[in-house]
Every structure is written in structure tokens, then in C-alpha cells.
């Protein structure tokens, strides 16, 4: 209780000193907490790219601070507190595991805005959440995977068994299956967001099983580097374009484009229109981009994939459109029904046809 008061009054002092009231602000200090290094070439790299877009958009009206490699847990709470004490006006916490620390620190600094990526807890008025509909990109990848596999075995390196990841796997599988009914999916759980050695091991395990198309939901380029070692194995850039593998195994990518959202939110803080939100944009909003599909993919497959992308963007097609059954055979979506967002955000089941269990 004591610290709560102490910190709150310290925060209040800072607010008064900087003259930041509900109206607009002359200058915003925007701070970012990263789970990996900015050089990971994937997830964190893209968030940092978004931060740099904020800098470019507002110039010296904004000051950017960031901290790399922050463990998800007790350390995150300290880093967030340091940032809030240090005068950050808005803090973006860019990994799921920062959910409880973000809300805990937000309670102590009611005047600092907190933005948590991929979470669902908004316990306080100053906490917003934002995410991107990556499953839309997975649908496009799944289609390419189904068409491209020669062994009919495709693989997926999963990070943690959370809805975010599970819906990506389901979307990937459904569209691969639609493109190629003979396809089989193997899922490897890495239990990490960023660990190049583990990610490479997972890719190797999949290749040893005869998998020739690998998708990953981890942050580094290691799966592509591993895929490059075996002739005929292809993969996708994850989170970032990973264009340096274009001559190698990378045939397309999902690019997380956080810049527009960051620019919008910091801008709202500058002009005084900032409100608490729960943002979930996809291909249509420009948050999810499909990276260039290379010439390794035949022209007709490429055209189909791009048509799929455009249909999702136009809102004429939803990647989860019934009939879809759950893995145990029970019905989930009826013919023509599309998945409600609530079902997706709490998704804890595989769809019918996927072999293997979600770790429980």
C-alpha cells in the first residue's frame, strides 16, 4: 500500500512537472518493452520498426525509449516502473507475457498510458490492448503450403499453447487441407518466443520427419536457416519479411506492420483524442502484410494466394467459415457461419484433421 501511494505521488509530480493534462501534449515520451533483441529479424525487429515510424512521423515532438530482452515476469514489472518513473507518457509492452505486470504497474501510474500487445486484460482505464489478425495471413500461407508440398507433409513450429498461436495453426491447416486434401500437419511446440537454437532443432526434427514446408510462430530466422540446409524444403518469413532468405527457402511471409497503429496512438496522445481501446486489425487495416511471393511458387498458385489475400482484405471471405468441426469431431461452425471473435480469442482446440494434442 505504501509503495502504491509513494509511486502514485511520484507519478503525479512528474505529470505536473511536464504539464501534461487531458488536453493535448506538446511532447510525448513513448517507451517500448521488447521480449527479444531488436536484431532478431522477426517479432521484436518489427515492433522496433514501428517505433522508428513514430519517430519519423512526429520528429522531435516524440522521444523514443526502449528496453530489449525483458523477461516476462517479475523483471518486466521493474522495467515498466522504471519507465513510468522516468517520465514515459505511453508504454507499449510487446509480448503476451507482460499482461499481468502491465496491469499491475498501470494501477500505480493512472496518468501513464499502457498498451499491451496480444493480451486481453484491461483492468484499468489507462490500459489498452492491441493485436493483429495473423490468422488471416496464415490462411494465405496454408494455401501455398498445401499446393507446394511434395511429400504432403507440412510442419509448424509453435511457441506456446495460447489462443493466438492455436488459431494460426488451425487457419494454416484448414487452408492447406482445402488446397490439398492429402496434406498432413505436424506441430512442434518450442515453448519459447525467441531461442534460435531451439527453433533450429524444431525445424530439423520436422525435416527429419519428411516435412518439406515449414511455418513458424517463433521470432527468429533460425527455422529458415535450417530449412536452407536441405534441398527442396521451403518456409515462410514470420513476423518480418526475412527477405534475406528470398534466394533460399523463403517463398512468402507474414509481416507484422505495427507502425500505423503506433503512429495513430501516439498521435492521439499528442492531440488529446486518446481513448482506451481493444484493437484487432488484420490485412484490411494494413497491420498484417503478405510479403512478396517468390518465383519458386508457380504463377497459378501465386495468383490464387493473392486472390485469397484480397478476398480477406475486402471482407468477402473469413478464414474461419463453416462447416468446421473440432478435432474430436464435434461441430464448431455450421455451414456458412463465420467464427465470432470471442471464439477465436479463447481458442483452445484444434480443428478436425490435425493430429496430436495441444499441451495441457
Amino acid at each position: 500500500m505504501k509503495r502504491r501511494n509513494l509511486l502514485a505521488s511520484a507519478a503525479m509530480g512528474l505529470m505536473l512537472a511536464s504539464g501534461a493534462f487531458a488536453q493535448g501534449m506538446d511532447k510525448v515520451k513513448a517507451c517500448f518493452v521488447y521480449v527479444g533483441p531488436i536484431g532478431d529479424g522477426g517479432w521484436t525487429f518489427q515492433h522496433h520498426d514501428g517505433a522508428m515510424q513514430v519517430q519519423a512521423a512526429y520528429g522531435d515532438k516524440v522521444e523514443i525509449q526502449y528496453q530489449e530482452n525483458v523477461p516476462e515476469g517479475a523483471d518486466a514489472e521493474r522495467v515498466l516502473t522504471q519507465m513510468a518513473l522516468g517520465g514515459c507518457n505511453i508504454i507499449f509492452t510487446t509480448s503476451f507475457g507482460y499482461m499481468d505486470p502491465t496491469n499491475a504497474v498501470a494501477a500505480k501510474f493512472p496518468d501513464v498510458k499502457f498498451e499491451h500487445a496480444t493480451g486481453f486484460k484491461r483492468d484499468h482505464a489507462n490500459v489498452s490492448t492491441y493485436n493483429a489478425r495473423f490468422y488471416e495471413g496464415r490462411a494465405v500461407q496454408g494455401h501455398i503450403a498445401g499446393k507446394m508440398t511434395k511429400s504432403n507433409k507440412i510442419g509448424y513450429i509453435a511457441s506456446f499453447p495460447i489462443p493466438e498461436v492455436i488459431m494460426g495453426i488451425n487457419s494454416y491447416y484448414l487452408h492447406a487441407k482445402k488446397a490439398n486434401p492429402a496434406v498432413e500437419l505436424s506441430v512442434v511446440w518450442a515453448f519459447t518466443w525467441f531461442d534460435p537454437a531451439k527453433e533450429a532443432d524444431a525445424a530439423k526434427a520436422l525435416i527429419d520427419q519428411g516435412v518439406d514446408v515449414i511455418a513458424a510462430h517463433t521470432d527468429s530466422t533460425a527455422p529458415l536457416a535450417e530449412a536452407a540446409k536441405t534441398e527442396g524444403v521451403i518456409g515462410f518469413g514470420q513476423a518480418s519479411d526475412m527477405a534475406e532468405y528470398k534466394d533460399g527457402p523463403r517463398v512468402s511471409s507474414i509481416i507484422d506492420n505495427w507502425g500505423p497503429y503506433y503512429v495513430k496512438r501516439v498521435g492521439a496522445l499528442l492531440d488529446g483524442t486518446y481513448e482506451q481501446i481493444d484493437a484487432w486489425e488484420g490485412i484490411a487495416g494494413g497491420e498484417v502484410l503478405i510479403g512478396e511471393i517468390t518465383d519458386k511458387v508457380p504463377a497459378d498458385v501465386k495468383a490464387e494466394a493473392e486472390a485469397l489475400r484480397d478476398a480477406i482484405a475486402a471482407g468477402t471471405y473469413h478464414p474461419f467459415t463453416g462447416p468446421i468441426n473440432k478435432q474430436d469431431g464435434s461441430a464448431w461452425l455450421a455451414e456458412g457461419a463465420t467464427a465470432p471473435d470471442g471464439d477465436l480469442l479463447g481458442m483452445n482446440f484444434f480443428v478436425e484433421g490435425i493430429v496430436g494434442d495441444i499441451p495441457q
Partner: protein
Amino acid sequence: MFRLEKRPTPSKFWLYATPPVAVILTMIAGGILFAAMGKNPFEVIRTIFWDPVFGEFAFYLRGQLLVKAGPLILIAIGLALGFRAGIWNIGAEGQYIMGAIFGAAVGLAVFPTENRLIFPVMVIAGAFGGWLWAMIPAILKTRFNTNEILVSLMLVYVAETILAKASTGFLKNPEGMGFPGSRNFSSYPAAQNGFIYEPLGLHWGGVAALVTGVLAYILLTRHQAGFQIKLAGQAPRAARFHGVSPARLVVLCMGISGALAGLAGLFEVTGPAGQISIDFNTGYGFTAIIVAFLGRLNPLGIVLAGFLMALTYVGGEMASTNLGLPDAAIQVFQGMLLFFLLAVDVLTNYRFRLPFSVGAK
């Protein structure tokens, strides 16, 4: 060039001078590194070593030092007892995880009962979990003469798998919407390891660390078991003639270090971390090995070393956030500390001789 000559007896001076000299050398080499990166080295060093204790936000960061140092000290003291006896428990990280799981499981099993006894029972369960995990390499060593370094290290990975299982399965929060992780202890007062005195960051884990430091010091200097530990490390044969049973010593040292690591895990999961989650462990068990050596395997030295290590973490974060230093530079800086410590340590047992001075004697 120089020649190294073994000292007849280890130098008392260098034994105590090594850590401060290593810190100073780290500051100099680190400063050169930071300067090469275009930062003002004095500002960086000040941010790391001075600001957390005396700077603008010291009122908050001072408390964080003990929060960070507590588990390091607790684990390192246990490890140091074994290291002194030549018993190498490298798997404290696993024992830390198991202590957290055992203790948390007890608390979560009786959720949401409110009773004063719950937390003490959880503490015992935490120590038991760590002890049990350490007994596996201990008994394998005494029975089958396996290598405790390998077995205890490998068991870390087993513990991590059990941790993943716990947070996605048997300890998962039933109200967590399917997300991995247990209930948060911050909303369960009977099982919560809250702060006793917030400005100093003092929770029961910190108390345990400081008390253990004193007890371990008394054990080593005044108690028969402490004498046996030191003897076994310095002169195993003599120890055997003195009636010290190596098997009993292995079980004792592994058990103490396991129980202390388990305690650290329990205090962390119920306090600063708040919940069992897949990546609950952040390497305290491994960092504690550095702390043990930095503290010269002496309980009081370890207390100081724990705070120094915590300072490099907390201050390092400050430098990284406020001065825009990459995290990798901070890790290099921490690595330098261990490097210089080991390098300077040579002087405890050896001395430099210039070739010509041999003849000039």
C-alpha cells in the same frame, strides 16, 4: 615475459582484494567498450553503479536490489557449501523451479481458504520440492557414482518441462480463459509473499537470504559439519581419516543447496513473479553460481556479491533504457565481471615473476 610461480600458501591479501580489483577492471574495460560505442563511459558507469542506490529514483530501485539479490544470495549460499566440499550442484535452476511448483501447488490446492498456516506450509513444501529434486543426483552419485554435475544440470531441463506442464495443465488458472499460467498469488492474501517493508524491498525471501547468510557463516566457522565440509574440499583423504563419510556429505550438501534453491523459488513465485508460468524461471539458479564464486564461497561475501550482481542488473536496465545501450553490451559488461574475477583470482595462488628477477635473487 612473465612467469607464474605457485605461492607456498594462498595469499590472504589477494583472497580479499580479488573482487574489488575485478570490479574496478570491469569498470575500466567496460568504460572503454561504452566509449567505443559512442557513449559517455562515466555516465554509463554512474548509471549502473550509482543511480540505483543514490539517484533520482533510488527510493524505488533500492528496494528492487534486494528483490533481485534475495534469491541469488539464498541459492548461492547453498551452492557454496557444496562447492567448498567439492560437490558440484549445477542444477539449482531446476531445484528452484521444483520448489516453486511444490509450494505453489500446496497453496493453490486449498484456494481460496484463508488461514495463517497456509503460507508457512507452502514454505516447507517449497524447500521440500527443491530438496527432493537435489536428492536425485545426490543418491545417484552415492549409489552408482554418477557425475552430479551432469545429472543435476540435465534435471534442469526435466524441471522446465514439468514447469510447462504445470502452467498449461495441472496448475493452470481455471479462470484464465485457456491461457497458460496459474492463478496470481497477488490476489490470494493467505498464500502471498507480500512486502514486509516496501522501501527496502524486504519480503520473506530477503529475510530468509540474510538469515541464511549468518547461519551458514556460523556453520562454517563454528560447527563440526562446517569443518567437515571445508576439510573434504581441501584434503579428501584427510577427511576420510577424520571419519567424514563422503556419501553423507554429498547428501547433506546437495540437500541443503536444493532446499535453499527451492525456498528461493517459492518466495519468488508467491512474491515478485506472482504466478507459475511457462517461463517463470529467469536463470537465478545459474547466475547464483557466479555469485557464489564472486563472494569467494564465503556466506558473508556472497551477501555482498548478491547485491553487486543485482546492481549490475538493475543499473544495467537503467543504462539500457535511458542511455539507449543495447542489451548485449550490458551482458558483455556482466560477463567481464566474471572474466576479470577468474583472471585476477590467479594471483591468490600464484605470483608473477619476471624472468630476470629469478637470477637477481
